[in-house]
């Protein structure tokens, strides 16, 4: 069985009927990783031996009669989620060699279900970036065009799933870091509602925005992973007590009577690639043909999401990253004469340029004399952005929008201009500020590069957006498209 983007559902059948084993499947994927990683560079750490052990354990559990859909499924994990027994670096030299003594709750729940963790995927340092170019180690390449970025910050996870170097992957999304790379790499990317999945063990970047989610080949795979990861966790006081439905069992059923909102603010006159715009228009036609009604809604404060986000997220980051002091973990400057020198030099040498930039920006926005003008002002506009969604969802069940204004950009194109890089997130930021759920799914190709469409949902309406995305997927061929790197592998 070829590992090149088989779905969890397909693999489950193959495992049930004895056509393959988790060990055989894991070996195939490890072989594939060996073959393509020199070009792709999606993994920061590969845990081949541990993966084969986990696969053996999964095969034993299956022969003992267990049959969870995730039992024996090889999975990649973004390197900002803590993993016992494996390094967790957050793509930062600051945490090189750090091995957490515990698993993130999301990881622990998936391990319990029997997934096979393959390793840790590349990310922009501390998840701050849109291309993986801010990784302290290296840049991951887009499997559709190796000269382009995979998006970020979950770019390693997106590239791995797109290229068949993992069946599925975990990511995190603070301002679009799951959905944007999913769009750039032509895979499904699900960002759950804030609080839907525990943040325990997700290394904090911006605590009021961070949320763990998944990157997968199909919507059903995303549903299967979400229903296993989600739910209240006593170790995360912000995790929600909302019951967790069986999302996978709610995918089927028609879209009759469903209303899809289209907000003109997501289709500005300029700033969206015409090919992206055409693909989104085409997607709207598919949903209309499936029985959904398209209604116009307005999210008037959308244009302010970018300044709000790039004040609030750095402010929270400047506080969260104060913990990296070279004392309890992480890089410690060896030549320091006193504790103050140790703090300043460990942080100066451990952090990369974008992390320093955001720490500085956030501290400025919080500092005496500027707090009201920047931080408090941004918090107030966040209220307006949240109210926009509350009003829009009175008129529709979900909102359709482009995930990104363009397809994947070239490596190096934006790296020297932070503001240009921030613009890559312009269509994904609002959702995090409002704490809602969203999914990006492939909806076309433009000049040989994938385009993603977002389905945005109200809080805890994951079942609705998953059903809309699944119906679209069933009616279109886009989720079956494979990047050239896959075709090359099979001659």
């Amino acid at each position, binding site marked *: 069985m070829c590992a090149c983007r088989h779905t969890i559902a397909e693999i489950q059948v193959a495992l049930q009927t004895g056509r393959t084993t988790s060990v055989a499947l894991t070996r195939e994927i490890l072989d594939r990783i060996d073959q393509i990683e020199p070009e792709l560079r999606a993994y920061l750490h590969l845990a081949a031996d541990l993966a084969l052990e986990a696969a053996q354990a999964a095969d034993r559990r299956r022969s003992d009669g267990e049959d969870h859909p995730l039992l024996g499924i090889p999975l990649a994990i973004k390197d900002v989620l803590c993993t016992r027994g494996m390094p967790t670096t957050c793509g930062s030299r600051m945490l090189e060699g750090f*091995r*957490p*003594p*515990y698993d993130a709750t999301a990881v622990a729940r998936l391990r319990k279900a029997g997934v096979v963790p393959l390793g840790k995927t590349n990310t922009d340092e501390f998840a701050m970036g849109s291309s993986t170019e801010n990784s302290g180690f290296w840049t991951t390449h887009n499997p559709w065009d190796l000269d382009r970025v995979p998006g970020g910050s979950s770019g390693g996870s997106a590239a791995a799933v797109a290229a068949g170097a993992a069946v599925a992957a975990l990511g995190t999304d603070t301002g679009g870091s799951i959905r944007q790379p999913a769009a750039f790499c032509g895979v499904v990317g699900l960002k759950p509602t*804030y*609080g839907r999945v525990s943040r325990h063990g997700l290394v904090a970047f911006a605590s*009021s925005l961070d949320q763990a989610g998944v990157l997968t080949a199909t919507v059903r795979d995303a549903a299967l992973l979400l229903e296993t990861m989600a739910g209240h966790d*006593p170790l995360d*006081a*912000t995790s929600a007590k909302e019951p967790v439905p069986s999302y996978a069992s709610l995918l089927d059923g028609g879209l009759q009577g469903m209303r899809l909102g289209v907000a003109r603010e997501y289709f500005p006159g300029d700033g969206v690639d015409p090919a992206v715009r055409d693909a989104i228009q085409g997607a709207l036609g598919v949903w209309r043909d499936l029985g959904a009604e398209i209604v116009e809604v307005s999210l008037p*404060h959308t244009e*302010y999401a*970018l*300044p*709000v986000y*790039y*004040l609030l997220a750095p402010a929270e980051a*400047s506080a969260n990253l104060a913990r990296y*002091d070279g*004392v*309890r*973990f*992480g*890089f*410690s400057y060896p030549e*320091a*004469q*006193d*504790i*103050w*020198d*140790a*703090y*300043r*030099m460990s*942080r*100066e040498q451990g*952090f990369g*340029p974008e992390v*320093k*930039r955001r*720490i*500085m*920006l956030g*501290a*400025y926005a919080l*500092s005496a004399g500027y707090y009201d003008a*920047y931080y408090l*002002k*941004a918090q*107030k*506009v*966040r*209220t*307006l952005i*949240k109210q926009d969604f509350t009003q829009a969802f009175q008129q529709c069940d979900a909102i359709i929008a482009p995930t990104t204004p363009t397809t994947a950009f070239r490596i190096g194109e934006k790296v020297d201009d932070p*503001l240009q890089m921030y613009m890559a997130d312009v269509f994904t930021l609002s959702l995090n*500020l409002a*704490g809602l759920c969203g999914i990006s799914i492939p909806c076309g190709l433009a000049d040989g590069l994938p385009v993603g469409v977002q389905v945005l949902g109200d*809080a805890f309406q994951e079942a609705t957006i998953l059903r809309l995305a699944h119906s679209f997927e069933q009616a279109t061929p886009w989720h079956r498209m494979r990047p050239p790197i896959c075709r090359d592998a099979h001659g």
Partner: protein
Amino acid sequence: MALERDQVLHIAELVKLSLTEAEVELYRQQLAEILDAMARLNELNTDDIPPTAHVTAQRNVFREDRVREWFSTSDALANVPDASDGFVRVKPVLDK
């Protein structure tokens, strides 16, 4: 807006970063440029708008104060750059 070199150094001291001269100049320019772009929030009148710090409907979250098993001291200290006899050793805090 213009950002002064002293302001950059002040912020760097608040966040304990020992910036190089080149970084001070780079961040002086880039932060000013970014803050200019953020200033468009001032187009909006927010006098009567309450701030949003978080989006959950929760208020206080309590749990029982109970001892539970967690990881061992050796696990907890495994990542400490300079540990000795179950302690974390730091550089001098006070002048000798």
